[in-house]
């Protein structure tokens, strides 16, 4: 009968035997496959997503093209939904931040029907995760959709028909040719094979890609925010605070270092400007405060604001453009109610262009970023805190509360 000690000895010497090494050709074969394999992102609560940062100093056109590359150029049909690498956006990705800005370049031209409302902004992408100097998309899932099929199958982005106005436009990309679909409102259908990217499976829309081509026709729904039967300030004040399942942490996360002393001071100034603590009134308060030229100065050439937190820098310099205003509003709202963050996201797109005879021409200088705040039962409600008469005014009725308590 063998003793325990001997058994250990036998097993150890037997298992340690041999000095074989991995075959280099096997490692090489695996690395070739790695080239074609995307990394898997974590589900909720993950701190790090794969981000391929866009570098500063490129033109808006380059940024648009890079965005197309980063989120993957048109990749055809892979069938089932799959996880993909996130895009990111920084303040350096706006046309006026380029070394040689060409402000009169046309981003795209759109043919609009007569019923298209005036002054509708163009949406390109949304971002949930703030990473100090950039915004990214967490848990990106992509699904291929055939031309003409509904784009928002199970997406949380779907809105009830009764609350939206639907119209169809034909977009001819010019400088903005990075294969990202632009749409007035939320796109629901397009006459091209498309890849829909959502933040988490069945989550909210991050962006839609269409193959590079001269034109595409997109059907979009725009929430009727000016219609008091759809939404009013009072309805939003009473909206439930129970978060829906699609609300991943990215929409509420405030990363360490986002708020320095200047940003904290700014937040307390804003909180002191309103007696209300519900998300809607806080959103209006932040928007109003940032828009006020007495507090902040609009400039496409702000000094500083390189590296560190965009919010802290803007709170210090008090000068910047849409990216600074929108980022600051989105992050301050998340931080306004300790332990009860208000969900926000950043929207990248374009301000309304020049319209003539049913054709709207949108210049690259109209590239814009704004904020959306989530309200249970109403979805994502836009706010535009950019000063200098650039940000669009809200159309929601009962904007101001009736009386202070």
């Amino acid at each position: 009968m063998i003793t325990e000690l001997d058994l250990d000895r036998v097993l150890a010497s037997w298992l340690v035997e041999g000095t074989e090494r991995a075959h280099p050709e096997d490692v090489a074969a695996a690395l070739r496959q790695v080239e074609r394999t995307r990394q898997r992102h974590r589900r909720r609560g993950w701190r790090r997503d794969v981000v391929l940062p866009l570098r500063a100093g490129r033109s808006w056109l380059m940024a648009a093209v890079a965005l197309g590359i980063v989120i993957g150029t048109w990749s055809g049909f892979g069938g089932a939904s799959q996880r993909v690498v996130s895009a990111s956006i920084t303040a350096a990705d706006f046309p006026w931040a380029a070394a040689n800005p060409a402000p009169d370049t046309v981003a795209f031209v759109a043919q609009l029907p007569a019923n298209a409302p005036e002054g509708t902004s163009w949406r390109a992408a949304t971002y949930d995760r703030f990473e100090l100097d950039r915004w990214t998309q967490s848990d990106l899932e992509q699904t291929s959709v055939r031309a003409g099929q509904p784009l928002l199958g199970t997406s949380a982005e779907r809105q009830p028909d009764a609350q939206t106005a639907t119209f169809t436009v034909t977009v001819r990309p010019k400088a903005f040719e990075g294969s990202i679909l632009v749409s007035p409102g939320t796109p629901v259908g397009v006459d091209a094979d498309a890849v829909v990217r959502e933040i988490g499976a069945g989550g909210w829309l991050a962006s839609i890609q269409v193959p590079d081509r001269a034109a595409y026709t997109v059907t979009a729904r725009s929430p009727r925010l000016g219609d008091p039967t759809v939404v009013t300030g009072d309805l939003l004040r009473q909206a439930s605070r129970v978060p829906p399942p699609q609300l991943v942490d990215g929409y509420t996360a405030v990363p360490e270092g986002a708020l320095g002393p200047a940003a904290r001071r700014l937040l307390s100034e804003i909180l002191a400007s309103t007696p209300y603590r519900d998300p809607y009134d806080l959103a209006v308060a932040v928007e109003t405060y940032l828009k006020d030229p007495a507090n902040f100065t609009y400039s496409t050439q702000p000094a500083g604001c390189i590296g560190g937190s965009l919010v802290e820098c803007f709170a210090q310099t008090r000068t910047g453009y849409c990216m600074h205003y929108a980022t600051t509003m989105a992050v301050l709202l998340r931080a306004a109610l300790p332990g009860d963050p208000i969900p926000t996201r950043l929207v990248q797109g374009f301000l309304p262009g020049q319209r003539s005879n049913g054709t709207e021409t949108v210049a690259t200088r109209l590239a814009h970023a704004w904020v959306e705040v989530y309200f249970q039962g109403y979805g994502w409600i836009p706010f535009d805190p950019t000063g200098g008469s650039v940000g669009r005014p809200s159309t929601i009725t009962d904007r101001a509360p009736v009386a202070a308590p």
Partner: protein
Amino acid sequence: MDRALVELAQRGEREAYARIAAQASDRLFAVALRVLRDHEAARDALQVALVQIWRDLPTLRDPDLFDAWSRRVVVNACNAGRRRARRPVVSIGVHVGEPSVGDSQSSVAMRDELERAFTRLSLDQRAVLVLQYYEGLSMSEMAASLGVSEGTVKSRLHGARRAMRAAIDADSRLPVRAEEPA
């Protein structure tokens, strides 16, 4: 594994991952070969593991745990490969080193006995033996590497050792002393 390298690879840097693969592949292959006892199957498992490690790397919360985590991936790849191929595990063994000191006819016979007993174990049991005797891991390290509780590790180890002991005892002609250095 170097933490900074792992962090780069987690952010999608393929070059960083190529360096990690180069550094880790010998160790991962050695584990796969010892668990599977089949050269070709181990080569397959290594390739599968290297792709899987890349794909799932962002899910590794603490880069310092890369070694334990990658060991788990390769053990799982051994399991998956076996399920997929259903290839019979033949005991060609790892007899590639020079015969050890004191090697004799009887120890070769004992090796065959060990080999036969080992390949009758489940892959889970084989994995705990390899991690304990080849990698020299503690109970808690094995539990971390296999993603199971220490209790599970202990019971697998107990079963595995009992089976190996039975194999050795069955051939009482084999003097264990033969394994001792001359």
